[in-house]
């Protein structure tokens, strides 16, 4: 017949098993909800929107009940340990534990009243985690479709790059570097790219944008190089035209004027201003009558040359503002023809009497050399005054001979370490001060006054 303690002990064992099973189920359910939520999210992103099939995962927690119950049953504590705990909690003094060895019925009456010990499960953290994972799973299930697919169809943010490229294409079109049809095609491509750019697969978008940017950049670079060449030619022509104007006033002879006009004509012809991407315009009536231009026509020619130069400079400046070309290229363009001096050329032309020779073109090709007073444009630069070496030479001083070495005498050559005589030499400074320069003295310890007596006694005893 079961006693009340026996019943209480059985209840205690059942309570423990139920609690451990519940605790394990909560842990497993937490993990399950989390895994289920991640799976729902992944499936919905991939396009599965059938809520019925997704909701079926909820039934996964049912087998978990069975799994946790079986697992707890397998791992249940030994009954003797449960009995020992019951004995301890009820202060039975080992009587209940002794029941496994002998009949203790006679003692049961003296025990305290049977009370089933209670378990206190601090479940706050476990329940919080379970709630969080369940809410996560529910949220993934109830998430609107547009949000679920948001990340898959999120557009790629390329607005700024597209705007910059559109501005570049617009500039290239305005400067006639690309024709209007190609510019329209590029603008259309950019708009389409912006519309089709999604974060799911950004590589194609980036490749297309890189291609357009490279093509813009190549066109701009080609235009800039052409502008530089034409600007240099225009500057040379302008220099010669100004020199001719000034030389005519100074009384340049007719033969020289004719030769200079021919040179100017061949120079403008060689420049091919009307060809290429950036075609310039010189009034044809001026080009046709270069040999006999009056003062007013020469002014018009100079204005036309200046205008074309400025136009080219403005174009390159616009390209540089959009960072389509290297700033160094713009600087090179602005500095083109800086070395030319029309006044010096005018002087040369006015002094030239033999008329036609090729020196004018050579003069323009070698700016800064020589000059009319120094032997012609091809002459090298010279210095009239040689540099003086006065007061620049170092004074030589003979060093006095070493007096100490003079007094030194060779007494012999040592083959081994030198040996000291009876008069030991003391070191003068430093850590070895007062140390005798013989074997081992560097390791000598200083004997403090209070130690002296003990040291003396030690040596006395040894004697």
């Amino acid at each position: 017949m079961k006693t009340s303690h026996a019943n209480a002990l059985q209840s205690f064992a059942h309570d423990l098993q139920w609690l451990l099973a519940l605790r394990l189920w909560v842990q497993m359910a937490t993990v399950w909800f989390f895994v289920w939520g991640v799976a729902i999210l992944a499936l919905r992103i991939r396009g599965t929107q059938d809520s019925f099939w997704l909701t079926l995962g909820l039934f996964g927690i049912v087998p978990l009940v069975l799994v946790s119950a079986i697992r707890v049953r397998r791992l249940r504590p030994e009954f003797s340990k449960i009995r020992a705990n019951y004995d301890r909690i009820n202060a039975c003094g080992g009587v209940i534990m002794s029941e496994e060895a002998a009949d203790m019925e006679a003692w049961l009456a003296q025990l305290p009243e049977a009370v089933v010990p209670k378990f206190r499960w601090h479940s706050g953290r476990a329940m919080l985690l379970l709630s969080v994972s369940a809410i996560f799973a529910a949220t993934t299930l109830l998430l609107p479709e547009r949000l679920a697919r948001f990340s898959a169809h999120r557009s790629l943010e390329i607005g700024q790059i597209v705007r910059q490229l559109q501005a570049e294409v617009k500039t290239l079109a305005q400067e006639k570097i690309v024709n209007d049809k190609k510019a329209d095609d590029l603008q259309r491509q950019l708009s389409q790219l912006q519309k089709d750019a999604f974060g799911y697969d950004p590589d194609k978008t980036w490749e297309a944008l890189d291609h357009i940017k490279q093509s813009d950049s190549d066109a701009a670079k080609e235009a800039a190089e052409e502008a530089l060449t034409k600007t240099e030619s225009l500057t040379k022509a302008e220099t010669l035209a100004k020199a001719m104007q000034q030389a005519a006033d100074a009384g340049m002879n007719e033969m020289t004027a004719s030769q200079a006009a021919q040179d100017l004509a061949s120079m403008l012809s060689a420049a091919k201003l009307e060809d290429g991407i950036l075609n310039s315009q010189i009034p044809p009536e001026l080009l046709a009558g270069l040999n006999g231009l009056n003062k007013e026509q020469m002014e018009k020619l100079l204005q036309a040359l200046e205008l074309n130069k400025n136009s080219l400079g403005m174009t390159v400046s616009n390209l540089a503002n959009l960072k389509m070309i290297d700033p160094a290229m713009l600087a090179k363009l602005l500095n083109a023809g800086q070395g030319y001096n029309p006044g010096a050329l005018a002087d040369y032309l006015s002094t030239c009497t033999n008329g036609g020779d090729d020196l004018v073109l050579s003069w323009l090709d070698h700016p800064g050399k020589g000059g009319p007073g120094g032997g012609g444009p091809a002459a090298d630069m010279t210095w009239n005054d040689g540099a003086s070496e006065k007061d620049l030479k170092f004074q030589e001083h003979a060093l006095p001979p070493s007096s100490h070495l003079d007094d030194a005498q060779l007494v012999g050559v040592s083959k081994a370490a030198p040996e000291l005589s009876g008069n030991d030499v003391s070191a003068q400074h430093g850590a070895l001060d007062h140390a005798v320069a013989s074997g081992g003295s560097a390791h000598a310890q200083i004997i403090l006054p209070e130690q002296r007596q003990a040291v003396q006694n030690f040596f006395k005893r040894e004697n």
Partner: protein
Amino acid sequence: MPDTILKPEELQPAAELVRKTLEQLDRILLGRKELHRLVLIGVLSRGHVLLEGLPGLGKTALVKTIGQILKLDFKRIQFTPDLMPGDVLGTHILQETSSGKRELLFQPGPVFTNILLADEINRASPKTQSAMLETMQENCVTLLGTTRALPQPFFVLASQNPIELEGTYPLPEAQLDRFLFRVMFENVDADVLDQIISERRRGELPAPTWQMERDQLEMLFQTMGKIYLPHPVSRYIARLVSATHPGGAEATEPVNKYVSYGASPRAAIAIAEAARGNALVAGRPSVGFEDVKIVAQPVLNHRLILNYQARFDRMTPSKLVTELLGQLDETGLNLPKDVELAKA
């Protein structure tokens, strides 16, 4: 496993004797009920007890009173640095017999008694202290190849003064281990002192009104042998002693940090015996976990050898044992940390 477990009617006479003994002790020596209980447990466990406390706290009085109540022979040795082993154990004296023949006769020392009070035991030289080793463990004395048994029961109740350390010889670990308990004598409170002043003029102790007969004492020892030690409790004792060893499976962090050597198997036996004694004093036929917890402190507090780090951190064996008792799960049920067991 025992053949039988004591029935209530079998245990009751022994419990009554224990009750009367404690009653006499509490009546004669005031204000130390717990201490009397521990010393009586030591006697019931046939163990030796080391009493440690300041002078004048009643160590000698306690031992004398126990001797009177138990009607046992009682002798006292005041240990001094010049005390020799022969002064304790006895010596051979050359004597002439009636027949005129001379022979060496053994003159027993004060150790041949039932209760030996070794007063200020740490004042004797290690040589003399060591002379006590055989008597305490084997209950016999061997001199000149002859082994003589000591009268039974034999208890050594030794005292130590913890403040006068100059000129003393600390007891070696081997000898400390032979003491079942090391019991600390604490000061009594003002009420008890007031009672002592009022009722104990010149410190004279009242005579016991009841004394235990030898056969009754023998019956108590027999009853002690029948107190049942359940397996979970013996397992707990084993785990507890094992946990005092640094690096043990259940050793706590302070044990690993501060203990050089843990308690010996003799300590485990001592805890088991003392727990039986506590169960008998409580009138129970079996040992529970609480019995172990009560006796673990006096059994273990002189058996743990601590390292220098413990000295620096002012860690004592008592603190370590208290901490160990608090942390070690008695039953080894190993419930999860977030599950707690409580009485309803």
